[in-house]
């Protein structure tokens, strides 16, 4: 994976840059010692590392604006960073960049339960937003699995999803307004606590822009009343095809479960030996969760199990209470840990049309065998968002490269069956060079034209999303 060559002029200007940053930020908010900036050398895509020139931790919108004005004047690239949980390398620095972390922007600004919104500074973690409104009976719906750690700023930048988005949507569907600092330090208010844009939907294009259009410092988020209760059912099948058909039948029946999770045999076996959730040893497992009052839950689960029985399941296990629910979710929730114990892994998140599932799983099996890497599949079956986990040994030369090549083959397959490269993790650097497989030059040009408008000099996270050869002319303008 290539990154742009660091600009030697910028490296040489480090003392001047640090002095200027120190003039506008508190002393401990500018980190420039080589051993300290190393803490920012990577995010959760740990295979790639590069220490930044400087890291800054502003606490207010004004401080963010001051930093961006300086970087704009000096032509220094800025890589925004939420909590650093990106699996796609969205916060990977270059040696000549300033890392701008939002970790100190942690205030709740306003809670309004009658109009159902919360306004926060974007360094707050996803889960702490829910914690702030929980006692009033509300929650913030998007629930990426990193929700304990990940920041709202990163959620907005990557348009994060989660297991429950089948019912509640992803970040973009729950974002009402932002305060954003543009590359030149201008502060702009977009949207508000009211619904929908009056003019062009700038909020829609900012959400998921991977820190390339601006730095969001405050956000107004929609909050929802907590459901009365939720319960899952576990259904095991002898074949992936049959499990896939069962998912389609559940959806066609008119029920909208809050989650439909799918696990294949390699994952079932790995999680069993790791967590011992008591899953049946079968080809495919579904966890279907529904919400409502106890009676509503019972009625919905009855319908789901009736549909499942038509597909001859090897096992149906309906949760009768919280303990059993936790047990059913235990294996799914420990899937990543289980694979992690077996070796290093790459986690992909291509999305496919639900109907293509059996074909895609079969092809992944063949590709996995040919490449000599074990692949386990967990995924959000209701919305077709796959999570193939490719095992490899980082200590063995060539293994990372061949695992990545297999990953690229799988992602190309997702695109070829009518899907996309990434459903919720983002492009970052990880899928950057595959973008030309999904998009034509005109498609990419239209996207880059949007960045031209927001960030004419391409200083914000410039080496991400677009293949370097495609963005070269624009980045050259720096």
């Amino acid at each position, binding site marked *: 994976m290539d990154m742009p060559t660091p600009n030697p002029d910028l490296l040489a200007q480090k003392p001047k840059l640090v002095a200027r940053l120190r003039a506008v930020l508190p002393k401990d908010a500018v980190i420039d010692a080589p051993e300290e900036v190393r803490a920012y050398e990577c995010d959760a895509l740990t295979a790639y590392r590069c220490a930044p020139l400087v890291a800054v931790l502003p606490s207010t919108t004004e401080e963010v604006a001051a930093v961006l004005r300086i970087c704009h004047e000096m032509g220094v690239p800025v890589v925004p960073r939420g909590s650093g949980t990106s699996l796609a390398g969205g916060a990977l620095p270059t040696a000549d960049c300033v890392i701008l972390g939002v970790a100190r922007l942690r205030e709740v600004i306003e809670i*309004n339960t*009658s*109009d*159902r919104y919360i306004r926060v500074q974007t360094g707050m973690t996803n889960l702490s937003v829910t914690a702030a409104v929980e006692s009033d009976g509300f929650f913030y719906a998007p629930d990426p699995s990193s929700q304990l750690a990940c920041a709202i700023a990163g959620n907005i930048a990557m*348009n994060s999803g989660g297991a429950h*988005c089948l019912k509640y*949507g*992803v970040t*973009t*569907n729950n974002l009402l307004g932002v305060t954003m600092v543009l590359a030149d330090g*201008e502060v*702009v*208010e*977009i949207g508000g*606590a*009211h619904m*929908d844009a*009056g*003019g*062009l*939907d*700038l909020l*829609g294009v900012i*959400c*998921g*822009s991977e820190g*390339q259009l601006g730095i969001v410092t405050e956000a107004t988020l929609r909050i929802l009343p907590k459901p009365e209760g939720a319960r899952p059912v576990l259904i095991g099948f002898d074949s992936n095809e049959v499990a896939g058909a069962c998912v*389609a039948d559940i*959806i*066609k029946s*008119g029920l*909208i479960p809050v989650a439909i999770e799918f696990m294949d045999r390699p994952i079932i076996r790995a999680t069993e030996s790791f967590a011992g959730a008591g899953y049946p040893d079968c080809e495919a497992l579904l966890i279907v969760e529904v919400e409502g*009052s106890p009676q*509503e839950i019972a009625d919905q689960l009855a319908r789901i199990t009736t549909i499942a029985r038509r597909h001859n399941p090897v096992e149906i296990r309906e949760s009768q209470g919280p303990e059993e629910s936790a047990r059913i979710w235990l294996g799914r929730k420990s899937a990543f840990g289980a694979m992690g114990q077996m070796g290093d892994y790459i986690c992909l998140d291509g*999305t*496919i*049309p*639900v*109907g293509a599932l059996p074909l895609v799983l079969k092809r992944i099996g063949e590709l996995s065998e040919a490449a000599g890497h074990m692949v386990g599949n967990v995924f*959000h079956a209701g*919305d*077709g*968002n796959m999570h193939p986990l490719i095992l490899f040994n980082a200590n063995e030369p060539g293994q990372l490269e061949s695992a990545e090549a297999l990953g690229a083959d799988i992602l190309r397959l997702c695109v070829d069956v*009518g899907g*996309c490269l*990434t*459903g*919720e993790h983002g*492009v970052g650097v990880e*899928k950057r060079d595959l973008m030309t497989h*999904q998009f*034509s030059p*005109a*498609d*990419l040009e*239209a*996207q880059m*034209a*949007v960045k031209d*408008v927001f960030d004419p000099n391409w200083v914000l996270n410039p080496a991400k999303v677009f293949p370097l050869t495609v963005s070269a002319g624009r980045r050259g303008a720096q």
Partner: protein
Amino acid sequence: MSILATVKDISCNTEAQLADMIRAGGPFVVTGGGTSRIGLAEGDRLLWTGAQFDYDPGALTLVVSAGMAVDAVSAQLAVEHQRLAFEPPDLAPLLERAGVRSMGGMVASNASGPRRVAVGACRDACLGVRFVNGRGEIVKNGGRVMKNVTGLDLVKLMAGSQGTLGILTEVSLKTQPIPETTATLIFEGQTEVEAVNTMSRALGTPFDITGAAHLRQGADGTPARTLLRLEGMESAVRYRVEALHQRLSDLGAADVEWDQAHNGEIWRAIRDVTRFVGVPGDVWRVSVTPSEAPGLVAALQPEDVIYDWGGGRLWLLTTAGTDVRAKMGKGHATLVRASDETKRTLGVFPPENRIVAQLSKGLRQKFDPEQKFNPGMMG
């Protein structure tokens, strides 16, 4: 100049042909079916007649030509007991227009009805678009799958762009199962402050309210009504009506409408602003936070008002020439129905702050550098 005056019609049935026409000609009015056009512009009208229709009920997704009729698509979805969740309004009667609503027009105007309060707007259901921009380039964005963060999201940008960035040729949308049963809980005689309070309380319960609206007392003497809609499996709706009623028991007795046809009529009338059809006056569509809504209405003293989205959307009927924006704080107002002169004076679309206006202008310049599409319509 009349609203969206058209000089001549040009029909295209391939994207390549459309692209050629755009490169060679202009300016164009981009109108979809022309049933809910509200902005001012003039030029030739490009008619797009592509006929793509690819519907996967098991995946709740639909890929369809932008030229297809909303009603025809809805009929196809109904065969599989599905629908467009966001309830796109039909504003043709309100605006006294003939024509057939198109899918492209629906997306380009982000047309969303009462269920928006629960399931999001049209833009939230949009999964992908294909369009031809002002340079005559064919562009696709998004796709047909429900979760997609690959590259910048131009789908949302195109939704609600009123045809000013490009001509949509294809749209992909999420569909929703049609629930078994609908019921509406009706409180009569509430003041507008009470009504918004009722709606906010209801929307704060876990009972999945999919419509929350308030209508003033009618000219025929029908009392003011606050309406709360519940949808789902019959057993669930029966339970939730009961439970909601109990939560709001301090508000006195409420009626429950169980008749399915009547429920359809009630919410269609709110969706299509039927109350203002044929009634003289300007019509404004306002987006505010619900708690600010009654105060704004009191300050404006409109002829009539419909509170939808729990008070988050107001339809205002005002005497001709009233400037609703003069009394507004936060939120925004769109002038939906008025004379051309009033529209020119007050502007159809809400003014934007300096930087948003600058960014929007920049985007239009990139997508349509020669201002070929609906020139001047949105600023």
